Structure formats: structure tokens, C-alpha cells
């Protein structure tokens, strides 16, 4: 059930894809801002300590090397956690409706066209859910018409007691058969 083909458009659903991107971008910005703040705090503290000490170092070199390593390490740990939480949240938000839709579609496949398919207001892919429900409704209407027609056929055929009587309802029966055939032909098999 898999195929390799390329899609030309990469931005299909701006709302869903926008939310996806924004969450990761916000996480990155927050961690970087925190890293800058912490780095400055530690750098000022270090520089003040050095400046107010009685003996200044003759060779400064990378005076803030330890602070930088410390801040970077923390930033990496935090960003990994932030990305894990963000990705899990996004995936959970998508998995909920997908799992529900899968079970709803399986139920329809088993022949149950009665129950409506409803996703919650905040669920992702509500349009798709509505599309599936629309499909269920249309299939229901089509099969309902077939069911009614077969009921009518059954009723009509039971009315004939003799060949004369049958001759009278023959035209009606023929019309019903043509209609039933037309309804079945609506489906492209």
C-alpha cells in the first residue's frame, strides 16, 4: 500500500502545519533566551569576581570558557526535553482523532451506516472527519433508497394472485426494477 511519488506542494494545511512549526520555534526561542540570560548572569558574576579580586590574571585567555560550556550544556539538555514534550503533544493531538476515525471507518466498513462521526471542536482534521461523515450520509441515503425500493418490489410481487392480476402490476414492477438497477449503477464498481 505504499508508493513513491513526489508532491509538489509542501504547504497544504497552513493551520495544522503552522501550529506544528510555531511550537518548535517557540521552544527554541525560549531556550535560547534563557541561555543568553544565564550566560550574561554568569559572565557578569565571573567578571565582577575577577575585577574585585586583589590580583588580576596576567593572561586572560578565554575567561568565560567554563560559563559558556555550562550554559551550552544546560541549553542542550533543556532543548531536548522541550522538543520531546512539544513533539509528544503534537503527536497526541493528532493520534486522538486519527484513532477515533480509524475505528469509525472500520465500523462503517462492517455495514453500520447509522452512527454519526463527530470529532471534538478542538480536534485536528475536523474537515476530514466531516468529509467521512458526509460520505457515510451519502452511502446511507443510497442504500436506504435501495432498501425502500426492494421493500416496494416485495410488496408488489405479493399482491399478484393470478396471471391476470400480475399482468396489471407488471408495468409497475418493471418500473421498480429499472429504478433499482439505476440506483445500483450509481456506484462505480
Amino acid at each position, binding site marked *: 500500500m505504499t508508493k513513491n511519488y513526489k508532491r509538489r506542494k509542501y504547504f497544504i494545511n497552513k493551520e495544522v502545519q503552522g501550529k506544528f*512549526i510555531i511550537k*518548535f*520555534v517557540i521552544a527554541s526561542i525560549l531556550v535560547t533566551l534563557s541561555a543568553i540570560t544565564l550566560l550574561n548572569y554568569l559572565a557578569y558574576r565571573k*567578571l565582577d569576581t575577577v575585577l574585585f579580586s586583589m590580583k588580576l590574571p596576567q593572561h*586572560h585567555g578565554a575567561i568565560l570558557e567554563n560559563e559558556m560550556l555550562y550554559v551550552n550544556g544546560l541549553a542542550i539538555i533543556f532543548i531536548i526535553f522541550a522538543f520531546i514534550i512539544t513533539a509528544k503533544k503534537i503527536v497526541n493531538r493528532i493520534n486522538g482523532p486519527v484513532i477515533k476515525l480509524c475505528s469509525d471507518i472500520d465500523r462503517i*466498513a462492517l455495514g453500520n451506516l447509522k452512527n454519526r462521526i463527530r470529532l471534538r471542536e478542538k480536534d485536528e482534521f475536523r474537515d476530514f472527519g466531516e468529509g467521512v461523515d458526509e460520505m457515510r450520509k*451519502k452511502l446511507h441515503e443510497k*442504500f436506504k433508497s435501495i432498501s425502500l425500493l426492494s421493500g416496494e418490489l416485495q410488496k408488489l410481487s405479493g399482491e399478484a394472485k393470478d396471471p391476470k392480476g400480475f399482468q396489471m402490476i407488471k408495468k409497475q414492477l418493471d418500473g421498480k426494477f429499472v429504478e433499482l438497477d439505476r440506483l445500483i449503477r450509481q456506484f462505480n464498481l
Partner: protein
Amino acid sequence: MVKEKSFQGISHSYLQKLIVRCSFLFIAGIFFASIIFYFSSLQTTASTYLESFKLLIQLRHEILTKSIVIYSSATLFIIAGISCICVFYSHRIVGPIYRLTQFVKSIADGDLSGKVVLRGNDELQSLAGSLNRLVWSYNKNVRGLAVKCRQARQTFSEFSSEEQLDFENYCSRLSNDIKEIETEVEKLKL
């Protein structure tokens, strides 16, 4: 019909790859920012106390601007990279949904001949599997209905007023054929 009963949501490998790629990009960005920051704050050696003091004061004044400029520039590159990764990864979910929506529309219009095929690395294969099973099942139902209908029509067309003796037999055959159509429809919960 192929029964596929696996995890119906988004796969764990998708989640892992997304996290690893974004994290890797962030680490690379931070790493380059650190290197630039390191060399920009590297002090030259001072021979006297006063010179050393001046250098440290200068560094203290510049540190805020330097860190903001360097780390913000790195963040911009990180954001651009992460946005690209997110577009590709979200497309692996949104793309199939778009394709499945089109497929569902065609089913609603009565097309039960198709099959939805997703790309190899697309997510939501289970949803596509469910829809394919649905189409397969209704295709079978409608084919059954068409056969029963044809059979009943065939029986119906056999009627002739001269066959008076067989009329009872004819009626029961026609009635049975029509009943079979009803039985076929009754398989569905309408």
C-alpha cells in the same frame, strides 16, 4: 481483504526522527554560536595591572551586546532550519490527510472502484488501510446486490400469461429473488 491491525496513530520512529533532527540542528547552531562567542571574547595578554583591568572592563561592557547578537543570529538560523524540518515532517501527516479527503469524496460520489495509495514514508497508513477495507467491503455488497437484482429481473422477464399452470411456482421464485435483494441490503445497518 488484507487485515491490518497495527498501531493506528503516528509511528514512534516518526517522533524519534523529528526530535533527533531538531535537537541536532539546535546543538549545531549553539555549537557554532559558542565558537564565535569564544573567539570574540578571547582576551589578549596584558602586561600591566591597569591594562588588564581595562580589558576586563571593556569585556564587561561588550558582553551583553555580543552574546545577544551572536546567539540571536544563531537562533535565526536554528529557527529557519527547524521550520524546514517541521514543514517536511508535518507534510508527512497533512499530505495523506489531503489525499484521503479526496478519496473519501470519491467514495461519497459512489466510486467504489478505487484504492488509496500513500507514499512509502507517509504516516497514517492505518487510516488509508481502513478506508481501503471500507471500499472493498461496500464494493462486495453492491456487487452482490447487482447480481441479485439481475437474477430477479431475469425471473421477472420470464413471465408469460400462457404459463398459467406454473404461475404459483413463478411467483414464489420471483418473491424469493426479491427477498434475496432485501437480505443483501439488510446486511447493512441503515
